[in-house]
């Protein structure tokens, strides 16, 4: 684009961000402060992810951008366009084709490869923020690996509800050292982070932090021996592709309680449909839902 550098950021800024990324990769799960720039998109819209993507993006890369697992959500469209316009790179919706995937709130269903990078948009990088609002204090807690408060929080859930009631942004321990916020992905996606072949980068623009998980790194969701981590998904099959193991969106189809459950990962769903998989194509009535829930359990 005229008047702007490749991928918008100037080269000095990219170098500064790459240095932060290198440091982040060297200390998996540790939040590295960086000189986050004011982007032409608002804070909260993915400015951290955009800066990270801009810094690792090359002319030969193919970029995929998803929000809520979908390529066609408005913010994903907007960010994809931003890079198509400022960097002129090829874009795709196909997870397999992409070399860089910028995401908000999901990890694609298809396992990622060594030659891919996934960039997470992070609203709140501090996993302890709800327990301790001061960043000066949480930095100290990380330095001392003082994570008892988080275990107590999980324990309190178990005593009260019988299980941990965190359903997204479920805290993980990276490389057995740093407690990390996986960004607001559903807990369903947490296991995908463990030993992932792809490089995982996390950018928080407003909070000015970058962190990373190098390929093949140990990532454990916090739990207890007698209360192992378990995931939750809607106990249904995708109405479009029939998948019974993907994360589902719940779409309200009328005002009488009918619902349709469809894959949140649109590329995964379309790929399966192209392979001939089909679902019922029909919404479920309220009564059927209640019966399904009674028999289907919690899908763990």
């Amino acid at each position, binding site marked *: 684009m005229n008047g702007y550098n490749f991928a918008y950021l*100037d080269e000095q800024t990219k170098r500064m961000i790459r240095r932060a990324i290198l440091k982040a990769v060297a200390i998996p799960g540790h939040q590295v*402060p*960086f*000189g*986050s*720039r*004011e*982007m032409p998109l*608002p*804070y*909260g*819209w993915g*400015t951290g992810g955009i800066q990270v993507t801009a810094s690792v993006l090359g002319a030969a890369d193919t970029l995929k951008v998803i*929000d*809520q*697992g979908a390529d*066609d959500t*408005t*913010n994903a*469209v907007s960010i994809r*366009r931003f890079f198509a316009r400022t960097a002129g790179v090829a874009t795709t919706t196909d997870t397999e084709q992409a070399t860089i995937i910028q995401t*908000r*709130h*999901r990890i694609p269903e298809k396992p990622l490869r060594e030659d891919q990078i996934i960039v997470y948009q992070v*609203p709140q990088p501090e996993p302890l923020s709800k327990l301790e609002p001061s*960043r*000066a204090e949480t930095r100290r807690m990380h330095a001392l690996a003082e994570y008892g408060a988080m275990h107590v929080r999980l324990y309190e859930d178990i005593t009260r*509800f*019988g*299980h941990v*009631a965190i*359903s*997204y942004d479920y805290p993980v321990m990276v490389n057995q050292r740093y407690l990390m916020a996986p960004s*607001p*992905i*559903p*807990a*369903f996606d947490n296991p995908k982070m463990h030993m992932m072949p792809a490089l995982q980068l996390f950018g928080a623009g*407003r909070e000015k*932090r970058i962190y990373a998980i190098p390929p093949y790194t140990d990532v454990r969701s916090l739990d207890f021996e007698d209360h192992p981590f378990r995931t*939750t*998904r*809607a106990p249904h099959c995708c109405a*479009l592709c029939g998948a019974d193991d993907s*994360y*589902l*969106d*719940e*779409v309200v*189809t*009328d005002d009488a309680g009918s619902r*349709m459950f*469809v894959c*949140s990962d*649109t590329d995964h769903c*379309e790929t399966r449909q192209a392979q001939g998989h089909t679902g019922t194509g029909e*919404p479920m009535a309220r009564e059927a839902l209640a019966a399904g*829930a009674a028999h289907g359990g*919690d*899908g763990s």
Partner: protein
Amino acid sequence: MAYVAVKGGERAIDNAHAWLAEDRRGDPAVPEISLAQIQQQLGRSVDRVMAEGSLYDPDLAALAVKQAQGDLIEAAFLLRAYRTTLPRFGYSTPLDTAAMQVRRRVSAVYKDLPGGQVLGPTYDYTHRLLDFALAAEGNLPAPAPQATAESATMPRVSDILRSEDLIEGDGNPMPTTEPGDLTREPLGFPAPRDVRLQALARGDEGFLLAMGYSTQRGWGGTHPFVGEVRLGEVAVEIVPPELGFAIDIGEVTLTECQMINQFKGSKTKPPQFTRGYGLVFGHAERKAMGMALVDRAMRHDEFGEEATAPAQNIEFMLYHSDNIEGTGFVEHLKLPHYVDFQSELETIRRMRREAETNVATLKEAAE
């Protein structure tokens, strides 16, 4: 309703932008507002956008106000996003506000003082009665009376008190290191005062007003007096390395507030007045005064004061004073969160099932 996977986000965005452009223009029968009109007649808006946009450029600020339909936070955001792309050539020498071309200067602590009290263009003593004559266009106000300035320089009240050693000094106005810049380096704590003042100068006027107000009401009391508030034009000088001496590169309009506060002394310091400082681009007395109040409140450590109020909590103040960050994070809640919400739905359904089972078991046991 049949569900089809939603496509066409791209077209929706284009259409939304087209609608926005039409909405921005309003009724085409009404003449379009010009940047000159905004700059000349909505100057306080332009000033606020320059201050919070952290860029002194009245032309671009006027454009931002027009583009944002008068939404001043949105306009400041436009200016910030532009500012971030600009190269940094260097720092100016410290501005000399004693040499300000003063348009307004009032002190609340002396009845009269060198340079005098200059009311200038102020709303302070207007009666807030809607002026219906202003609704009719084409009325030129009668020219304001003219007078020559009393003196070329106007000493700061802090300097007057300083001669008796009753007030703390300026500190070192020519630091050896470059001042901190939170737009280049992330905020760290404890944050030094230069960075704090930078954050406040860029901060939201409403936030500074509210937090300054809170200190007056006892939440971190600072017992303030307005030493002075001054408004006017100040020359900006830089020293290009190849020249080795200062050259004038233009002037900026500034509002400066020196707030004077009580201090009973500590083990190391004698009783002395202390200062809170506010400096803002443009004509912005409310903000400069709020800034001076909270600047002083945040200096509790220097004077051995107990920090108990929000305005004294530096981390709280600096992390929440920026309205571009604030508006981004608050408004991002509009973005889709249905993946998270879905996981919450499943969790709450599960919890309700368990609660119902528990109630049923209890009932059975009771029967």
